[in-house]
Structure formats: structure tokens, C-alpha cells
């Protein structure tokens, strides 16, 4: 890659680790050696010591050590840091060389082997001559060693071996090749690590020792070099704290160097290296703020050190690299757990890097004129193929004085660099950096920064002539700027996009961008707009547009031929543009005049158009497509045909033009919504290119919502004064995108007459009068009558509607009678209908009377059949017509709480009218259960009785309960049926049967029933015979004691006191003759009865059956024959 000149060397960017060379291992053919080597290098996790191992042959030539300088007095350094130095200490000069040798303590050929080993050590030592590199020997043994001190042979031979190899005891190791290889290896490498530490410590000491020989005038470069070396050795020693300290010193020293044009690059290169090291260590020490501070300082110190003006692009490239590598360090630290924030994240550094790359490109374009041929011989070639020192010029390596040694060489060198720079793919570099930055800003919640960088990427693609990618990016961010309403920025982006579209001859894109650049959101000057409009017109005429300004001439000519090809191409001359989400130069708003229309009214629709471009614009077609609710996606062609204008129309700049459409709705669309699905304006024509500009819905674009809001704000402020002007004000034009089709207003009257309230269960008559006020015949009149839907569900069950009033309807009659045909209705004609309602429960109900009909009518010359309807509702209360009360009394009209078996009693009914209207009672009857009537069935006593409000009618029935086995229980009595109707209803109207369930009675049985036969009245001094019947109703023989008490009002004859026995089921009669002495109501002589065998039955309970009193008439003048006979 062409940018590689600025890449940081890998040996700088890696983490320095102690270098240990392993010799004597045959990792290819010897399995044991292979296993040992694998144990060293495989699986090196963070907990293992940082060593980089290498297997080298035993006779490997290590880099030669140059002879030590004894004095620096005449020495002039040629540069700061040799390019090979870091690599040398990382990979070539080991801190320790380890010799592996297979030798057991009890080896039979010990002597020979010992000397062979010593030879090998000697070979290594020789090739390391002059270096401080340590040598160690590892004996690979097959046997497990004994604990130290126990194997005397071993210690003796070890000492001998050390002696032979000139090794210290600490440098001899034993590696038993047994089970625990990895464990031994780890112990070994820890020992190696210590040796390496010592080595690097001595190296640091050695470099430090040079310092005293240096002087500040001639050896400035060496100060930097030595500090750097110390720092680097400290890193190798893993002493990062000290490394950082020395790097910092080196950094300040590098800036103390005398800088001039010839060595500027060297200084900056070294400063960059050292800065990189410092920042890296700061991040590693988890002090990111120190890293950032150092980097800022670095940039501030270096950004003005441009160096040679002819190679200014180099400075930009270098700066870019600084930012980029810092960004990468930052990013790496984040991956290792550092937290970045919105305002401090790697994105900023990538962005700055991109920025400098842009600079570099700009300067390269200025400085590297095309045409110059590459100089020969190659000035950038060096003898070794590489530079000796970092940051120096190949044509004057090692030269450190202010002026270049050879002006001619200098010139060709610079020219060569300039020509090389020309081939650098700058845009590629910039885009890569920008895209890095975009990723970062996306991560750190900076959407606008992201958009901005994407714009820059788009622009860069444009410069790189990759217009497709440019447009893709620009299109993507354009809508962000549009929604945020940053018109200045949008215009700038659109301008670039338009250039791209022009250069790639993309007709559709070109038209879209033109339309928006001509629109009101564009901040372009009038003359630009004028030019763009002319170009747009050319494209519409199928001509080649003029070139956009600021496009380079070669691209323009390429574009021209592309355009001509496009134009020559037949077909595909129609384009449809959806402009809803743009801000096109033609604005469109449409509205229905009203949110609803009656079906017999023409629907009115207005379309407003307005052009924002500088010149009048003409168009050839305006069409509104409509859809009704059911077919939302299907454009209703029938309506659409009414909303089309096809003629040449023109719009004047800034003037609003209004187009009115009107059409008649289809009658089947009543109750539906008609919506505008879209509005289409056709620009251009058949001769050239047709561009259909489409607005979804009823117009409006990306900016109009906000404009309408602003307009509403201002009109609120101005109050009424503005209203007069509002019709002209474009912004306050409101969109009405749908309208409702509602049915025609009916011209009939519907009247109801009835007599509320309704009585429960009656056939309540509601009479309906429909009168037509139509001018034509109302056809198909239909009535829907009944309970209005949507009320309490129970009401539906308890309400029945019928048209037949002649009989009481049953429960199958519906609550709502739908669509009762009433025939046709001529103009002025009147129609009456009675509807009967039976309400089974009380309470209010809402009834609906819906009269629908159809009528022929003419709208705008069109015959249509309109369906009209009129609704009437009425609320009717239902009340109970009467209340029935029932009571049981004895034959003496005394209230009964229980009924004795087989003894007659009376049932009294009472009907109390609560109806506001008079009621006619037709009949009443009893339906008895258990009981039997004690009298033959007679005609009802209530027949033809009329009850007014509050009046009551009573009846009396004599009943008897037949003897039953299960006595003394409660039994149902039966039902009371009343048949009635309103008195006011017609004679043929049916009677209503109301059933009242009679209460239950408690039965009791009496052991003894006693009753008396006596005349209805007596007469003074006439004999009155009374016969008492005493019945035994038990299954036992009853002994009865009877006594008659004397009375003042009567004399009597008969047994005064008697004791008798009555057989079960038989009856005993006692006859008394009473002789009344006084007239009037007289108490009869009291009969005392007692049952000694049945003490629960006392006199009192038996006495209730007997008459207490009798009316005695005074003595008459004539004797009554009957009384004489009785006497």
C-alpha cells in the first residue's frame, strides 16, 4: 500500500519481550526436542513470563558487535535511531542463549560428552563475542533426578561440567524428560527470565555509562538515542514505569534538537515514535488522561513543524498517521475495558486523521503537478534498499547539517516524492478513516456527527468519482437534515448530489435533486436556481443539461456523452416521482370543501398548486386519485375521471393556483369515506420526457407540517384580523384529505300518537303517520319499528312488537320489526300504521321508528336513486295496570292464618287499579288446586266493571279444602285469572289475561267439628231451635262434655250439661230451643265443650266454628206461620 511509508514499524508497535535463543534442539527430527519446544511456545498465557523464544542452530551467527568506542570526542552522529536497532534487540540479539544437550549423570561416555558440550558452549560464546549475552546449559536427562545433595555423582559431575564450560552453577539446568514436562519448563523459563532481566539491566547500565562522554553541542542526537534505548531496554526488562520515564525524557530531548528543513522529518518521525510509546504505556498503566494529555502536547508541538513547503503533504500525512494511531491505541484500550464518553472517544481522532488526510490530498494536488517525468536515476534508491536511520532522506543519509549537500539531488529527490504522492489513493485513505470515525460516533451517541462524517464520505466518494456510492451515502443522510430543517446544510448536500447525478447521467436522481434545489428549502441564490430550472426544463425536453459548476472538465465531457446516450435511448421516457418526503419546488395541497357531503350534493374538491422556482413552470396534466373506504388501495376509476385536467397549464413563481373539481357520489357509497389517495402532476410531455410528480394523500411535503404549525401560531396571535387574509395565505391552507358521503336529507314527516304510559302486558298501540313532502314519488317505503337496538339486553326478551292488534301476541313476536313494506307514497300523501307493543316488564324503553324510502333525483344533470330515511324515537314507560290482593277468611269473615280441612272458608280478592286510564274488567275466574268450591260456579262478580284510577273491585269465593291425608302442611291454592283491557280501546281489541297466583295456605285438621243449624234471625218470644252438630273427625271414640251457660237474653230448653261419647266418624246432634227475650244483636248462650281425652283442643278453638250472635227481631203484630210451626 502506498501509505505504508507512514505506517509505524511493527517492532515499535509490539510489546517488547525478552529474547531468549534456544540452541541444540532438533525440533524437526527429534520428538523429545519437539515436545520441549512445544512446551515453551504453546499456550503462552498472560501468567507465563514475557519471553519470546527462538530455536537457533548451535553455530548461529549473531549480529557482530562493533568495537567499543573509547572516546566520543571526534564522533559526529549521523542520525537519531538506526532503523534496524529495535528489531536487532527484539529478534536478533538474545538476552540469553540456552544450549540444550542430552546427557545423563551416569552416562558411560561422560568424559567425551562433557568435552563435546564444552565445545558447543565455546562456539556460542565465540559468535556472541563482545556482547553481554548470557549462556546457559540445559541437560536433557532420561532419569528423574534424586533430591539435591543425595546424588553425589551428580553434584561432582555438575561441578566438573561447569568448570569445563566455564559456567556458573546458576547457569546449568537439568531437564528430566519425564511426566511433568510443562512444570519443569515453567520453572526453567522463570530462571531464564531472571537471566534476561540481568542482561537488560547491564545493557541499561552500559548505555547510561556513555553519557559522561557526550557533549551538548555535537552529540545532541545521541542524548535522544540513548534515552530511547534505555527506555526500550526497560521495556524489554518489563519495567514499564521506568520505560515511560525514559521515553518522556527522550521526548523532551527530541524537541530540544535544532530543527531545520533537512532534519524536520527525522525529528518528527522520532517524536512520533516516542509519543506512540508514551501513549501506549499510559493506556497500559490505565491512565488514559495522561495519554490524551501527552498526545495533545505532541500535536501542539508538532503541528506547526511542517518542514519543506514543497513536501507539505508529508506533514499532513504524518499528522494524519499520528491521529490515526492514537485512535487505534484508544480503541484498543476500550476493547480491554476502558470506558470512553461521548465527548472523548476514538472517533474524534479518526476524524482528525481523516481531516489531515484531506489536507494531504489537497496539498498533493497543489504540489504534485502532473506532467513531470520521474527522475532517473532513481533518487529514492539506497544501497541497502532501506534507510539507515529513521526519518531521513534516501539521497542524503546521515547528513546532519542545515543545508542540503547537493541542491540538484535535493530537487530530484523532492520531485520523486511528489510524483510518488500523486499515485497515492488519497480518497481511499480518507474514506477508511471516516468510516472508522462513523463507527465510533455511532457507538457514542452522536447521530449528527455521524451524519456529518457520512456527508464527508459521500463528498470523498464524489472526488474519487464513485458517484453511486456517493449518492447512496448522501441520500441516506439527506433526510436527517431535512427532518431537522437545516436548510443550509441540506442545500449543500443536494448540490453535491446533483453534481453526482449529473456526472453519472442519472435522470431520475437529477430531476429529484433539481426539484428540491428549486424548492423553498433550498438556500441557493436566485441565479443558481434559474440555471437549475433551465437545466431541468432541458431534461424534460429530452435534451442534455448544462454541466454543473465546479465539476472537472474531463468528467464533464464523459458525462456529456453519457447524457447523449441516455437521450438517444428510446423508451423509458416516463418517470414517476414520489415527492411526499421531499420538498419539491411545486407545492400541492388539496381539500374537500366540506368534511361531509349529502349524496344528492355534488362533492367539491380544490387542488392548490404553487411553484417556488424563479421562472414560470408549465405542466400538462393534473389528476387526483380517490379511493373509498372499502377499496383503499384500489383507485376508484369512476371518481377519478372527474378529477383530471389535461391541458397545458402554467404556474407563476410564488403564485397560488386553485383547481376546482366537482363530481357526484355513487349512492352505494353512502356512509363511506372518500379519500384522496394521491395527486399527480405531469411535467413535460409527449415530445420529451414525462415526469409524473406524485403526492400521496392530499399533498403536503416534508416541510409543510411545520409551516402549518407556524402559521397557526401566528394567526392565533393576530386573531380575527388575519382571517380575511387567510384565504390567500398558503401556509395556513389546511388539508382536508377525506370526506364522508351521507344520505340525502329526507323530506317526509313521521309522527307518532299514543297514550302513555303503556300497561304491563297490554297490546299498546302506537299509531304512526307518515306524510310525504317530496316532489316525486317516494318508492319502497319501509318501516322498521320496535325497540331501539343497543339497550339493556333483557328488554329485548320482554318486549314484543307486532302489527296485528286483533289478538294478544305471544313471546315469539320480535322486539324489532325490520323492513315492513309500506308501498309507495305519492307527493303529499299520508300513510298511517298502527304498531302494537307488548311489554312484559315495567320500566322505560326507547322505541325506534325508522322510515326508509328511495327516490329518484337529479344532481348536476345526473339521475340518481337516493335512499333516504327518517328516524323517530320515543321513550315509553310501562306501568302495572292494577294490583291484586287476596285474603282468606272464615265463614264468619274472620281472617284465617290456617285453613281447617273439610271446613268451608272464604277467599276474598281485591283488584286495585293503578292505571291512569280507566280499565274494563271482562271477567274473572279461579283455577283451583287442592281446594274445591263450596258453591256451584257462578258468573264472575266483576263482569263489565269499569275501574277508574284508584278504584278497586272485590270478589268473594266460598271454598273448602277436602280432607287429605297429609294434613297440617302448606298447599298451593291455585290461580286467579282476570281478563281486562283499556276502556278506551276499540271494541274489537283483545282482552288481556292476567294471572295472579294465589297464596299458599297452611292446613290444619280439627279433631272435633262443631257447627250449628240456626235460622238467620229470631224473634222476641218466639222459639228458636238450634241444632248443634258435633262430628268426631278422629279415629278414636271421643268423650265430649258439653254445657250451656245461661244467658240473660234467652231462655232455652235442652240438655244443660251432658257427657256423651261419639264414635269415630259419626256425628251427634244436640237440639236446643232458644227463646229470645230481647231484640237486637244478642249473644247466644255460650256452649262450653271440652274433650277430656284430647286436652289440646279447648273450648275456645272449637267455639270459633259456632255462631256467636244472632239478630232478634222485635215481636211483630202478626204471628209468623213459620215461627209457630217451629215452636
Amino acid at each position, binding site marked *: 500500500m502506498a501509505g505504508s511509508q507512514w505506517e509505524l514499524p511493527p517492532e515499535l508497535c509490539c510489546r517488547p519481550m525478552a529474547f531468549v535463543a534456544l540452541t541444540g534442539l532438533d525440533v524437526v527430527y527429534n520428538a523429545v526436542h519437539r515436545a520441549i519446544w512445544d512446551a515453551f511456545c504453546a499456550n503462552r498465557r498472560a501468567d507465563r513470563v514475557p519471553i519470546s523464544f527462538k530455536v537457533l542452530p548451535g553455530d548461529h551467527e549473531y549480529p557482530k558487535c562493533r568495537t567499543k568506542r573509547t572516546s566520543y570526542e571526534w564522533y559526529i552522529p549521523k542520525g537519531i535511531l538506526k532503523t534496524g536497532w529495535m528489531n536487532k534487540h527484539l529478534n536478533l540479539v538474545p538476552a540469553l542463549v540456552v544450549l540444550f544437550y542430552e546427557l545423563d549423570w551416569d552416562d558411560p561416555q561422560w568424559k567425551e560428552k562433557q568435552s563435546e558440550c564444552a565445545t558447543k558452549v565455546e562456539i556460542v560464546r565465540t559468535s556472541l563475542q563482545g556482547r553481554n549475552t548470557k549462556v546457559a546449559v540445559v541437560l536433557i536427562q532420561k532419569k528423574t533426578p534424586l533430591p539435591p545433595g543425595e546424588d553425589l555423582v551428580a553434584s561432582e559431575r555438575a561441578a566438573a561440567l561447569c568448570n569445563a564450560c566455564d559456567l556458573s552453577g546458576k547457569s546449568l539446568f537439568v531437564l528430566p524428560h519425564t511426566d511433568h514436562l510443562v512444570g519443569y519448563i515453567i520453572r526453567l523459563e522463570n530462571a531464564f527470565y531472571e537471566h534476561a532481566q540481568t542482561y537488560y539491566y547491564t545493557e541499561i547500565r552500559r548505555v547510561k555509562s556513555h553519557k559522561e562522554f557526550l557533549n551538548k553541542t555535537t552529540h545532541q542526537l545521541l542524548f535522544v538515542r540513548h534515552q530511547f534505548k534505555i527506555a526500550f531496554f526497560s521495556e524489554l526488562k518489563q519495567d514499564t514505569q521506568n520505560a515511560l520515564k525514559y521515553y518522556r525524557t527522550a521526548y523532551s530531548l527530541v524537541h530540544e534538537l535544532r530543527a531545520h528543513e533537512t532534519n524536520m522529518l527525522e525529528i518528527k518521525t522520532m517524536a512520533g515514535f516516542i509519543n506512540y510509546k508514551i501513549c501506549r504505556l499510559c493506556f497500559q498503566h490505565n491512565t488514559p488522561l495522561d495519554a490524551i494529555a501527552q498526545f495533545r502536547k505532541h*500535536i501542539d508541538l508538532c*503541528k*506547526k513543524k*511542517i518542514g519543506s513547503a514543497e513536501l*507539505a503533504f508529508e506533514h499532513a500525512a504524518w499528522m494524519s498517521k499520528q491521529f490515526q494511531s492514537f485512535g487505534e491505541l484508544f480503541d484498543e484500550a476500550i476493547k480491554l475495558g476502558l470506558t470512553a464518553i*461521548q*465527548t*472523548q472517544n476514538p472517533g*474524534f481522532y479518526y476524524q*482528525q486523521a481523516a481531516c489531515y488526510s484531506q*489536507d494531504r490530498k*489537497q*496539498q498533493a494536488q497543489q504540489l504534485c503537478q502532473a506532467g513531470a517525468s520521474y527522475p532517473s536515476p532513481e533518487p529514492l534508491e539506497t544501497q541497502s534498499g532501506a534507510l539507515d536511520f529513521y526519518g531521513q532522506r534516501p539521497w542524503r543519509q546521515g547528513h546532519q547539517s542545515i543545508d542540503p549537500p547537493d541542491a540538484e539531488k535535493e530537487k530530484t529527490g523532492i520531485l520523486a516524492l511528489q510524483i510518488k504522492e500523486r499515485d497515492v489513493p488519497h480518497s481511499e485513505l480518507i474514506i477508511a478513516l471516516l468510516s472508522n470515525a462513523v463507527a465510533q460516533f455511532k457507538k457514542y*451517541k*452522536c*447521530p*449528527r*456527527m455521524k451524519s*456529518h462524517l457520512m*456527508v464527508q464520505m459521500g463528498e470523498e466518494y464524489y472526488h474519487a468519482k464513485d458517484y453511486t456510492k456517493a449518492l447512496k451515502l448522501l441520500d441516506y443522510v439527506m433526510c436527517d437534515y431535512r427532518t*431537522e*430543517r*437545516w436548510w*443550509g*446544510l441540506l442545500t*449543500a448536500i443536494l448540490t453535491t448530489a446533483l453534481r453526482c447525478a449529473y456526472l453519472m447521467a442519472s435522470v431520475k436522481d437529477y430531476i429529484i435533486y433539481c426539484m428540491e434545489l428549486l424548492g423553498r428549502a433550498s438556500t441557493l441564490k436566485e441565479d443558481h436556481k434559474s440555471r437549475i430550472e433551465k437545466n431541468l426544463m432541458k431534461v424534460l425536453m429530452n435534451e442534455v443539461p448544462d454541466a454543473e459548476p465546479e465539476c472537472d472538465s474531463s468528467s464533464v465531457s464523459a458525462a456529456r456523452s453519457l447524457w447523449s446516450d441516455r437521450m438517444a435511448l428510446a423508451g423509458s421516457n416516463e418517470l414517476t416521482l414520489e415527492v411526499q418526503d421531499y420538498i419539491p419546488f411545486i407545492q400541492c395541497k388539496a381539500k374537500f370543501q366540506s368534511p361531509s357531503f349529502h349524496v344528492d350534493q355534488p362533492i367539491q374538491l380544490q387542488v392548490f398548486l404553487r411553484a417556488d422556482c424563479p421562472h414560470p413552470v408549465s405542466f400538462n396534466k393534473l389528476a387526483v386519485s380517490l379511493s373509498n373506504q372499502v377499496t383503499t388501495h384500489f383507485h376508484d376509476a369512476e371518481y377519478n375521471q372527474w378529477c383530471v385536467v389535461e391541458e397545458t397549464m402554467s404556474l407563476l413563481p410564488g403564485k397560488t393556483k386553485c383547481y376546482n373539481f366537482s363530481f357526484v357520489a355513487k349512492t352505494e357509497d353512502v356512509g363511506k369515506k372518500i379519500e384522496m389517495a394521491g395527486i399527480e402532476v405531469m411535467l413535460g410531455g409527449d415530445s420529451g420526457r414525462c415526469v409524473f410528480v406524485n403526492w400521496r394523500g392530499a399533498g403536503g411535503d416534508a416541510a409543510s407540517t*411545520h409551516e402549518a*404549525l*407556524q402559521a397557526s*401560531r*401566528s394567526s392565533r*396571535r393576530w386573531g380575527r384580523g388575519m382571517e380575511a387574509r387567510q384565504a390567500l395565505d398558503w401556509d395556513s391552507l389546511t388539508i382536508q384529505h377525506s370526506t364522508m358521503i351521507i344520505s340525502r336529507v329526507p323530506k317526509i314527516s313521521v309522527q307518532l300518537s299514543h297514550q302513555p304510559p303503556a300497561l304491563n302486558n297490554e297490546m299498546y298501540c302506537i299509531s304512526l303517520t307518515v306524510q310525504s313532502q317530496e316532489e316525486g314519488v317516494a318508492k319502497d317505503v319501509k318501516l322498521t319499528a320496535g325497540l331501539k337496538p343497543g339497550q339493556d339486553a333483557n328488554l329485548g326478551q320482554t318486549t314484543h312488537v307486532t302489527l296485528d292488534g286483533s289478538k294478544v301476541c305471544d313471546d315469539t313476536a320480535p322486539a324489532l320489526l325490520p323492513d315492513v313494506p309500506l308501498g309507495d307514497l305519492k307527493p303529499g300523501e299520508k300513510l298511517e300504521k298502527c304498531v302494537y307493543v307488548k311489554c312484559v316488564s315495567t320500566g322505560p324503553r326507547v322505541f325506534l321508528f325508522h322510515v326508509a324510502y328511495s327516490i329518484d333525483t337529479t344532481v348536476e344533470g345526473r339521475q340518481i336513486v337516493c335512499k333516504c330515511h327518517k328516524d323517530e324515537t320515543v321513550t315509553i314507560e310501562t306501568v302495572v295496570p292494577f294490583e291484586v290482593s287476596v285474603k282468606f277468611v272464615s265463614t264468619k269473615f274472620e281472617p284465617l292464618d290456617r285453613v281447617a280441612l273439610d271446613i268451608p272458608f272464604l277467599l276474598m280478592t281485591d283488584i286495585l287499579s293503578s292505571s291512569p286510564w280507566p280499565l274494563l274488567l271482562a271477567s274473572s275466574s279461579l283455577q283451583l288446586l287442592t281446594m274445591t268450591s263450596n258453591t256451584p260456579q257462578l258468573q264472575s262478580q266483576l263482569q263489565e266493571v269499569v275501574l277508574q284510577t284508584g278504584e278497586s273491585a272485590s270478589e268473594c269465593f266460598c271454598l273448602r279444602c277436602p280432607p287429605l291425608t297429609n294434613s297440617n302442611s302448606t298447599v298451593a291454592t291455585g290461580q286467579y285469572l282476570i281478563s281486562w283491557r283499556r276502556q278506551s280501546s276499540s271494541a274489537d281489541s283483545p282482552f288481556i289475561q292476567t294471572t295472579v297466583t294465589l297464596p299458599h295456605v297452611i292446613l290444619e285438621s280439627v279433631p272435633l267439628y262443631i257447627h250449628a243449624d240456626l235460622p238467620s234471625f229470631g224473634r222476641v218470644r218466639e222459639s228458636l231451635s238450634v241444632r248443634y252438630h258435633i262430628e268426631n273427625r278422629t279415629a278414636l271414640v271421643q268423650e265430649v262434655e258439653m254445657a250451656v251457660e245461661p244467658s240473660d237474653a234467652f231462655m232455652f230448653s235442652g240438655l244443660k250439661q251432658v257427657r256423651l261419647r261419639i264414635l269415630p266418624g259419626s256425628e251427634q246432634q244436640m237440639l236446643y230451643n232458644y227463646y229470645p227475650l230481647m231484640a237486637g244483636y244478642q249473644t247466644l248462650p255460650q256452649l262450653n265443650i271440652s274433650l277430656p281425652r284430647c286436652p289440646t283442643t279447648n273450648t275456645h278453638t272449637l267455639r270459633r266454628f259456632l255462631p256467636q250472635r244472632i239478630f232478634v227481631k222485635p215481636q211483630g203484630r202478626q204471628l209468623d206461620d213459620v215461627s209457630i210451626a217451629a215452636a
Partner: protein
Amino acid sequence: MRLTARSRNTNMAVCIAVIAKENYPLYIRSVPTQNELKFHYTVHTSLDVVEEKISAVGKSLGDQRELYLGLLYPTEDYKLKPNILNWRTRYGYVTNSKVKFVIVVDSSNTSLRDNEIRSMFRKLHNSFTDVMCNPFHNPGDPIQSKAFDGIVSGMMVQTG
């Protein structure tokens, strides 16, 4: 209360912008000698931090928000002309009605004290309030006011 320009440093702004609650510009003025578009981008990208700061404050402190948001981005380089680098710093301020003020300051030569920036914003806010009080101004429309222009001009770097 109207503050009068008193300190030497209050005319260091290179760009002053007023941004509506909905984040569209109501007013942007930058030093005429430089690329206006770049300043638009600068102000626009500053809104990222402004929005973030507003939402962060909204969560924790409720109504006790300080209008002055302080430094938006760390001081950054910008090019006055090719090869001449300057520093610039962006500061932000948000009114209670969420209208934002952004001031970009050229900090190459002098570092501004925080209270100097604050006083610039306060002056701007007062003048903005006056604009809003104008019955003929429709809030949400771009600011077109000579008085406001005057205040802004007083804070801008004097060129030429």
C-alpha cells in the same frame, strides 16, 4: 437588566447560533471570512452533546437545571487557512423553553474564563428574550432583529 460589554475577551466568538427547541436553526452568524457551511456543521454536530446533556440532567435533577452547559467538546483544531491551525471551543446554553445557544470561540491566543463565556450567554439570552417579547415576532420563525444582530456583532471576533 442589560449587561454592557466590559471585558476585553467577550468578543472572541467566531460563530453564534440560536437553535429552536426542535433543533432547527433560528439564527446562525459566523465570521464572514471563513467557510460558513463548516460552522453550520459545527453547530449542528454540537447538538449531539447538548441533547445528551439535557437528557442527562432531566433524569437526575428535575427542574434545578443550570442553563449554562459549559464546554461541549474538548478544544479542537480548526483550519483558518490551509496550514494555519487554530483552536476553537464550543460552548452551549439551553433556555427553559429548550431553545439552545451555541457559541464557538477562537481560543488560539487567549483562554477564556468560564465566567466570561457565561456573561456572553447571559447577554445573548437577554437579547433573545427581547426578541421573543416583540409582538410581531412569531416564535419558531427565524430571528430577524437588528437589536439582536447588534448584540451578536459585539461578541464576534472583529475582522478586517
